[in-house]
């Protein structure tokens, strides 16, 4: 009997957290459409999230394409289907693996950084100082970050997918003597709108989730340095779970629409 209490408590705090996160998200939309918009801070965040993640996303994407092709090649060769490598790799990367892996990488890079930054601002009273200076800290810190993450993630995913395909093309060029031109011709003939649209669509939601959870955890972090660490850590954990849930819903809806 005594053991049921922690479960009850955990369930209660889980739903309370979901409720608070939903309220936080609703406040984001409310503040997004009210003036003034902190355009300068929004641009700064786009630069921080976009430009500074390029190298990480590029390296991840390149190795992803490289390894994926190296691993698939022997099996496909065995069945005499090595000419299908560009089609298979491009569809897998663009539809599923690219967005999910890059979003997870960005959850670690962007989500944790937002959580830690806002958490430490909260602990050191910088958010209060902003409020006292006549600035709405939610608008200045949260709205700009969520919006920047929502808009930057699709761009990062497109970039990461492209670099992954370059990595894959390199393996095909070295191992299968397939020219880059032929490889990309095959890639572009294999990819259609039904691959690109759902993938790009869900990447906006991935970005929104990363920004929202990172800001929620940081903005509501409890006092003390331990709270900052917890905020940063749980931002990554919650976002990663949320990304898979969003991905499942996106795949389900895509199947429903395109059959």
């Amino acid at each position, binding site marked *: 009997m005594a053991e049921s209490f922690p479960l009850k408590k955990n369930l209660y705090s889980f739903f309370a957290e979901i409720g608070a996160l939903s309220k936080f998200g609703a406040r984001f939309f409310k503040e997004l459409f009210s003036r003034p918009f902190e355009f300068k801070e929004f641009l700064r965040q786009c630069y921080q999230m976009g430009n500074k993640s390029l190298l990480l996303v590029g390296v991840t994407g390149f190795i992803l394409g490289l390894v994926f092709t190296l691993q698939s090649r022997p099996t496909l060769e065995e069945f005499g289907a090595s000419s299908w490598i560009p089609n298979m790799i491009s569809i897998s990367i663009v539809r599923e693996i690219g967005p999910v892996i890059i979003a997870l990488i960005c959850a670690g890079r962007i989500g944790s950084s937002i959580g830690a930054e806002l958490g*430490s*601002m909260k602990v050191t*009273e*910088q958010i209060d*100082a902003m*409020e*006292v200076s*006549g600035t709405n800290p939610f608008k200045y810190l949260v709205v700009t970050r969520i919006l920047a993450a929502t808009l930057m993630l699709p761009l990062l995913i497109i970039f990461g997918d492209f670099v992954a395909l370059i990595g894959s093309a390199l393996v095909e060029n070295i191992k299968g003597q397939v020219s880059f031109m032929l490889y990309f011709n095959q890639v572009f003939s294999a990819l259609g709108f039904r691959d690109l649209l759902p993938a790009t669509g869900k990447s906006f939601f991935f970005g929104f989730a990363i920004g929202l959870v990172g800001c929620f955890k940081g903005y509501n972090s409890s006092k003390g340095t331990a709270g900052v660490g917890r905020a940063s850590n749980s931002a990554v954990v919650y976002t990663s779970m949320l990304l898979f849930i969003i991905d499942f819903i996106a795949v389900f809806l895509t199947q429903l629409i395109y059959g």
Partner: protein
Amino acid sequence: MVLKDFNLEMYENENLVLMGKSGSGKSVMIKCLVGLMEPDSGTIKVLGQDITKLDRTQMDELRAEIGFLFQGSALYDSMTVRENLEFPLRRHTKRMNIKDTDELVLEALENVGLAKTIDLMPNELSGGMQRRIALARALILKPKIIIYDEPTTGLDPITAKEIIELMTSVQKRYKTSSMIITHDVDCARVISHRMILLLDGTNYAQGTFEELSTSEDPRIRAFFK
């Protein structure tokens, strides 16, 4: 409930010191004054305006008249000293040109003796310097009231003395009213015109430093030991 039946009045050009044990509600009180927290009941009038009835825009306008020095300085980590000082200026004086902004920033920094730090980041400054920059930021809009939250906490005695001298000179130069929360008896002795002692969420005693420090009441005497 932290504060109960709490009444307080502050006068023009007055340095009012609030002392109390940790958890006695000092910080809650000053946070209510600038609208960071809302009281459950009661009225808070700042410069004649009941802040519980103000909307966000009106509250922000009122906040331009109140400078706030946070206990840990609360300088924005990601901004230079210049940007830290420009931040409240840009919020409250939207049409100010770059030249006027620069002049005000420099003037505020000169007032705290740190003009040379203008392009440094907060993490390049010592604790005492950060506290001075935070004071410059609190002063840049030339507020009528300044609230100091434990201004000398965490500083060495020499730096603490410098901050107290700075607070005194600021009060004289800007003719501000100051509310100072402190545990530092030396700070209270030098700067206070009037003191209030908070105990159990109420203003237990008030008077000048001399009156309170010579009181026979053991609960009051405990503050000055």
